């Protein structure tokens, strides 16, 4: 009986100490990890849209802010083109073939038109669905479309050319763009305010 109690006590103490330690460490490194993830996971996609695609001259990862939409907080990354911070990118997600597809959408606030989309994270089939990330033709078709309403692949009666053999993935990306349109509509009033403040 005494041995039983000892076993339970030792295990419980050990578990709680290690749990507490890890929780503290996690809190301590949370911000740093978030920065690193932005830099390495979303950074390339965001830069591709803003810096390479639209010719932004600032570092969009540094010029970011958060806007509260309902319960959630979204991060917005700002691209400054010709001295004016009119481009923003933010994240969205859709359901693909192998799980969630993370998408970054760039939009021009003055015209409400899409400046670019890029896939950040996915678990689609390599060589088939994964082309959504690598095939520039597929993501380019979104550029210039107004970011509002619903996006659907052509076989569902929409406007998006699906990747051949990867309809489900294409649907996921379209769904993510649709969600981005909703986020954008909700965030726009606050977004315009924030950008105005930056322009000064």
């Amino acid at each position: 009986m005494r041995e039983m109690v000892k076993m339970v006590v030792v295990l419980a103490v050990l578990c709680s100490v290690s749990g507490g330690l890890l929780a503290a460490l996690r809190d301590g490194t949370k911000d740093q990890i978030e920065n690193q993830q932005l830099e390495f996971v979303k950074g390339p996609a965001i830069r591709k849209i803003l810096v390479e695609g639209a010719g932004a001259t600032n570092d969009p990862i540094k010029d970011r802010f958060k806007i509260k939409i309902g319960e959630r907080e979204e991060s917005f990354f700002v691209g400054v083109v010709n001295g004016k911070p009119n481009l923003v990118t933010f994240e969205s997600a859709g359901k693909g073939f192998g799980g969630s597809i993370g998408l970054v959408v760039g939009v021009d606030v003055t015209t409400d038109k899409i400046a670019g989309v890029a896939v950040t994270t996915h678990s689609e089939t390599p060589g088939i669905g994964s082309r959504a990330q690598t095939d520039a033709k597929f993501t380019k078709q979104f550029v210039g479309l107004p970011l509002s309403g619903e996006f659907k692949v052509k076989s569902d009666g929409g406007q998006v050319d699906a990747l051949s053999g990867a309809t489900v993935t294409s649907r996921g990306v379209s769904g993510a763009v649709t969600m981005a349109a909703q986020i954008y509509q909700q965030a726009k009033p606050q977004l315009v305010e924030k950008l105005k403040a930056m322009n000064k």
Partner: protein
Amino acid sequence: MAKSIAQEFTKGLWAEIPPFRLVLGLCPILAVTKSVENGIGMGIAVTFVLTCSNILVAMLRKVIPSKVRIACFIIVIATFVTVVELLMQAYTYSLFMKLGIFIPLIVVNCIPLGRAEAFAYKNGVLASAADGLGLGIGYGLSLVALSALREVFGVGTFFGHPVFGSSFQPFTFMVEAPGAFVCLGLMLCIMNVLGKK
């Protein structure tokens, strides 16, 4: 105590060098040794986990009841592995992305558990620390040796710098999975020949 602290330390570097003598921890050694950078990163991570878990297990060895010792070892090891994982994510994210799943998998790596069971549970804190440090460094060195071999011949670079002229045709077989087995086998063979008395 039969052996001195220094002996406990140096045995990990040759006589009991983990992948070649104990033939433990082979799964990550095959997977991460594509470049020297990965090898060093993994070596440091394992050394840290091994040393810390050995010290802690040795400190707690009188308290831990023998019936639940394995569970206790795993908790200790898992805690340190998570520490490494979080720190790597926070400060060396690009390395973390390359090593990926093999960092959390150190938990089920046989080396830390094996040393906790076979050594730290029976020996003092200092000897265990020396044992962990020695074996960890030994593991790191073998990772570096293997990854150097694979990187130099497979990609034609060492630590990212080209070592051969532009006419060198990389022997890509070496950086693929079968190349890892062949390399490891050759290294084991050389170690056995050298170690023969």
